[in-house]
């Protein structure tokens, strides 16, 4: 009845790079490095990727409305030191509440006062990092055994991280693709003014997005702290920018309105495979940090914006 073919990937932003890059990396690594398929390496990759995936899902939620949150790494660090310095019963709730407060601060700054999200979250990134260092100046402390068990136990031969990933993916996928809230995020991200004319509130969802992103950071922090089994006040440092790189590689448009959970998975795998591959062929981890920077530059350059500026 119509000449329009349904777009295969809709508003997911999936394209040649988002799909081809992880596939190419996978092919390259499986052919080029014999250790790649060893059980140990697969498990290793999985644990590296788990935390990044959870954070990147939070970053996706913010990116859909055209925002960005680089403070999420500091939230991981804060969560870590809270878990390692409070008693087991209150540690997790306190960590989650603190994260929600950080998100609320970001959301108020951006959605209510109209501060540029990069500036707002840059400020909270520094502040929260300082706060984490104030609580604990160096790695250490004891982590509740239950958390360690949650992060480390293998179930049915699958590592715990796998289940963290699957649950996080399921929750965010339903939220974004099945609820009215999710649909409205896509609408706001595409054009907030048109969305408002269609009768969609704009401010509250924006605020909620920043809180959800910080909460994703806290959950990633719980997982990481459990795995390492000690607190670390700078544990989250690389995650802020890495999560932005991951979603940008996964085809998520940083200007808003386009992106998907699958894209985030692919982007995260790409980033994980690159650092794993560098590791396997014996490149210095510092060079791979530099490569992450290059990837970030490449990924954001692929998304030409309308305006020049911050």
């Amino acid at each position, binding site marked *: *009845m*119509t000449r*329009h073919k*349904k*777009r295969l990937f*809709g*508003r997911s932003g999936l394209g040649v790079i988002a799909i081809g890059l992880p596939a190419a990396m996978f092919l390259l690594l499986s052919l080029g490095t014999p250790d790649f398929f060893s059980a140990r390496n697969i498990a290793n990759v999985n644990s590296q990727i788990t935390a990044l995936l959870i954070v990147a899902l939070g970053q996706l939620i913010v990116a859909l409305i055209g925002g960005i949150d680089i403070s999420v790494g500091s939230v991981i660090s804060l969560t870590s030191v809270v878990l390692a310095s409070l008693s087991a019963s209150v540690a997790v709730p306190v960590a989650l509440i603190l994260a929600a407060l950080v998100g609320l601060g970001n959301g108020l700054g951006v959605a209510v006062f109209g501060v540029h999200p990069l500036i707002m979250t840059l400020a909270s990134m520094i502040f929260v990092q300082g706060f984490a260092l104030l609580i604990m100046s160096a790695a250490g402390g004891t982590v509740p055994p239950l958390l360690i068990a949650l992060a480390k136990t293998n179930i049915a031969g699958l590592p715990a991280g796998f289940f963290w990933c699957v649950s996080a993916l399921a929750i965010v996928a*339903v939220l974004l693709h*099945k*609820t*009215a809230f999710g*649909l*409205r995020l*896509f*609408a706001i*991200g*595409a*054009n907030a003014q*048109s*969305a*408002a*004319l*269609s*009768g*969609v*509130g704009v401010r509250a969802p924006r605020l909620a997005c920043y809180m959800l992103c910080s909460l994703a950071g806290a959950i990633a922090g719980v997982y990481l702290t459990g795995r390492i089994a000690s607190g670390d006040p700078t544990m989250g440092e690389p995650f802020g920018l890495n999560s932005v790189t991951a979603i940008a590689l996964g085809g998520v448009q940083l200007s808003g*309105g*386009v992106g998907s959970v699958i894209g985030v998975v692919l982007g995260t795998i790409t980033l994980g495979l690159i650092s794993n591959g560098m590791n396997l062929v014996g490149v210095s981890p510092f060079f791979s940090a530099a490569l992450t920077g290059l990837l970030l530059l490449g990924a954001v350059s692929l998304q030409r914006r309308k305006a020049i500026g911050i």
Partner: protein
Amino acid sequence: MTAFAPNDPAADAACVIAFRDITKRFGAITALSGVSFAGYRGTVHAITGENGAGKSTLMKLLAGVFTPESGEILLGGKAVRFGGALGARAAGIATVFQELTLLPNLTVAENLFLGREPRRFGLIDGRAMRERAQAVLDRVGIALDADVICGDLVIAEQHLVEIAKGAVADADIVIYDEPTAALDGPGVEKLARLIAQQKQDGKLIFYISHRLDEIFRLCDTTTILKDGKHVTTRPTRELTRDDLVSLMVGRELGHLFPRRNPRPRRQDPALSVSDFTAERGRPPVSFAVLRGEIVGLAGLEGHGQREILRAVAGLIAADGGRAQKYDASGKVTPLSPAVVATARAGLGLIPEDRKLEGLYQPLSIAQNIALGMLRRAPMASRARIDQDRIRALMGEMNIRARDASQIVASLSGGNQQKVMIGRWLASGVDVLLVEEPTRGVDVGAKAEIYRLLREFADHGGAVLITSSELTEHIGLCDRILVVHDGALVAELAGEDADEETIMRHALMGRPAAAAVS
């Protein structure tokens, strides 16, 4: 002012909506003043008038986008005040906006149901949404799949979907704001069917348009606005075409405009444009602007005159063709699509939106004007600002300010407009491209701005303007080029032109009589 009122509107059960003495201002500009009339159930009610008559403003008040300064809107006999678009929708008023409000990343179905998605167990019921959307599309006769992403549709199809929004809405009053601006013949047919259906369902349909054919065909009642004032509300069958046009236009020009230069003009061009396509898909245009003359690009909104001007200025990249600038000695400079280059070549753009694109609001008058003087200065050189020249300019232009150090943001619209013109006068360009020369400017300042532009032309400059005010073209321009659908359909001499002629060309495109040189 008394309204059209066969009965007392408030007492009549069929009266769904009544406007009483509505006034709306934007800064110094009065967009609507003392408008009163009523709308009745089961009728199609045309709101018409020239560009800028206040049609869209009135409907945006009804849609909750704006709130009136004074006066009231009676809905079913009760005064209402909407807190935004959401409130108006809750009250049963749906609007199909003139500009596209579709979200390009959502499917047709999602766009149609955004804000009131059908749900099951708290989640979106995707299937119900699709089925209901498809039903609406079929009912209106739009051959589109509800699952297609709107960004993949061509503009005309997007407008059809926009119209389908009016069919989805469970509303008593449906507003269509210039719905046919981007529709082809079959599209208009679909809209006509939909409107007939809605009328039968007992809804009140407001139909904003200045297309006479459609008004006579579709509308039972017609309200005419002019300059923000209510002219009349009458049954359409009591009106003839000539009535309608003469009620919409016709105004005395007074002594607002400076006298045209009586000398025979020199025939050397300052700017020429040939086979020029400002936007993909538009027909190519060719014209020239001679030294000493003011040329107007007239036409209805959205017909491409603005894009032609912007492409000449280098602000948007033209799709094809050639634009050339001639300096006083006759030397030719081809214009490249970069504003830095066109400004260097001697073209100055005065944009329509002063705040957004024109002025440096937080800087002083002197700083704003001085930036023009630095048009060709190398960056590392010392900024030599001739303060005396700035003061002299301010005097000549009659800019009312404390002194040259006053911040531009604190000036009135007219004075801001003069600062923008002053910047280019100080820069020494000899071609001015002016969008809406007097938008948001009071009457006194208007006359002064016209005088400044005329003087600029008299001193050997060339001016090209776009304006949605026909009187401006007639009063100010030496030649008027009428644009319809991106093509130049008529060239009129300013002295001989009248509003009806321009409107006829602008509305109906290429008439047999019009010769285009």
